[in-house]
């Protein structure tokens, strides 16, 4: 049964792009979670919804407009936070709701909800095409290389901004770069779990991995492992039982989180 599934092109593409997105979201998400920016992914995803609606209305490939809108909003949110002393969670809330609002208005103008909109809201990993898969792999590769090259800078400025500055790191540039990469990651991941469930990929595997009390590299590895497991098993299970992949993936991820809490409260895991 399982081997037969693997021979389908759409399944191969789903698995390959799913695994790439799982890795990407774990790595980028860990930095966001540790900076208390957990909902940032959500905010960008919601604002990209406005971009998607714009693309659908204008007849442009919706993910392109989503990339544009989400990157601009990511930069705006950071600017507002830095310049006007608005707290991180408040600026996230502003962006989150206004993104959806823009989307709704545009959808209203262009004549109501369509199937396309739903596939962006809830993901459509089984429908990912060859070009999308290549794009996802390329982007994953580039972002991972950037993080590897600037690993110390990213880690240090996440750990303590002031000390990172004193050690000569351009913390502001690193912050913008991270936000920029998070924006790209979010829009790329929309194909897997959709606008509404992005946070799950960014946050749940990471908070689970952090609980195991290891160092940074091991935590990253654990998070990736949890994420890949949820995505791969989620895609199979959803195909076999004909349920939504996005929901299944997120629930599996939540399951691992709940098990970890269970193990911890039984005292098997320290820290």
């Amino acid at each position, binding site marked *: 049964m399982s081997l037969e599934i693997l021979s389908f092109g759409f399944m191969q593409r789903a698995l390959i792009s799913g695994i790439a997105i799982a890795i990407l979201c774990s790595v980028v998400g860990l930095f966001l979670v540790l900076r208390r920016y957990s909902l940032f992914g959500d905010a960008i995803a919601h604002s990209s919804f406005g971009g998607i609606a714009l693309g659908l209305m204008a007849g442009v490939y919706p993910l392109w407009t989503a990339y544009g809108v989400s990157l601009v909003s990511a930069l705006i949110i950071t600017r507002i936070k830095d310049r006007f002393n608005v707290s991180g969670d408040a600026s996230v809330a502003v962006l989150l709701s206004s993104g959806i609002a823009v989307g709704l208005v545009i959808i209203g103008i262009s004549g109501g909800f369509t199937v396309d909109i739903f596939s962006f809201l809830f993901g459509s990993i089984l429908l990912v095409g060859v070009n999308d898969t290549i794009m996802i792999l390329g982007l994953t590769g580039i972002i991972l290389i950037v993080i590897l090259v600037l690993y110390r800078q990213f880690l240090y400025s996440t*750990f303590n901004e002031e000390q990172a500055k*004193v*050690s000569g790191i351009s913390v502001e540039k690193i912050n913008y770069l991270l936000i920029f990469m998070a924006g790209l990651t979010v829009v790329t991941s929309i194909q897997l779990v959709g606008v509404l469930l992005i946070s799950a990929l960014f946050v749940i595997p990471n908070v689970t991995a952090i609980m195991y009390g290891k*160092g*940074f590299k091991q935590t990253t590895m654990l998070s990736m492992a949890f994420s890949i497991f949820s995505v791969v098993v989620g895609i199979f299970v959803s195909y076999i039982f004909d349920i939504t992949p996005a929901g299944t993936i997120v629930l599996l991820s939540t399951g691992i989180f709940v098990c970890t809490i269970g193990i911890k409260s039984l005292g098997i895991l320290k820290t």
Partner: protein
Amino acid sequence: MLKVVEIEHLTVEYPGVKALDDVSFSVSEGDFLGIIGPNGAGKSTLFASILGLNTKYKGTIKFFGKDIQKSKEYLKLIGYVPQKPIFEKNFPATVNDVVNMGLRKKSHEKKIDEILQQLWIHELGNRRIGELSVGQQQRVFIAKALVNNPKLLILDEPVTGIDQHSIELFYSILKELNSKQKITIIWSSHDLDAVNKLANHVACLNQTLFFHGESDDFFDNDELVKQYSEASMQEHMHHH
């Protein structure tokens, strides 16, 4: 003697408050300078200015003769240990991870073990930073500050919230760094006795600099010590 830091007419004003007023002094290579002064005397502002965190000041700060506003390169020669290092309690970083954050050149990597041993934290390498006592954490941050062979070590009231045993150990480590490894140290402290024992130079700061010189000249001058003690006592009473 080569001047490590030269501060000329440094004035820092925040809205409505003058944090530092026309402060001038210099620190020579090998000096161990203790900066004393009541809370709010401008010690942290002084450090923030030297470290490039505060760039809105009047006057000049030079590091080995070069104006620090010209280039940030000088920061590579400074190790800084903050008063209370702020980080997420469950941040997934081990002691080794934290020390490595400070590491600018891979070639210095082999020095890490030696430094951890010198600071009595070599057995903690794989423990998470958040699990350690404040005293141990502080030593990890010193290790991080030392991995790049700094010429100057700056410590901002580094014993706040640390137990007595750790404080003693900490002081002996500082003494050794200064006398054996010839690292110039600028250190702010509330503890007059410790400054008397460790530092060879003293700066008394309270918005203005009202004493700067050899520590013997300060501690042998009863009038100065009395003045300082009264000022800080008032400050102490004020706080309670």
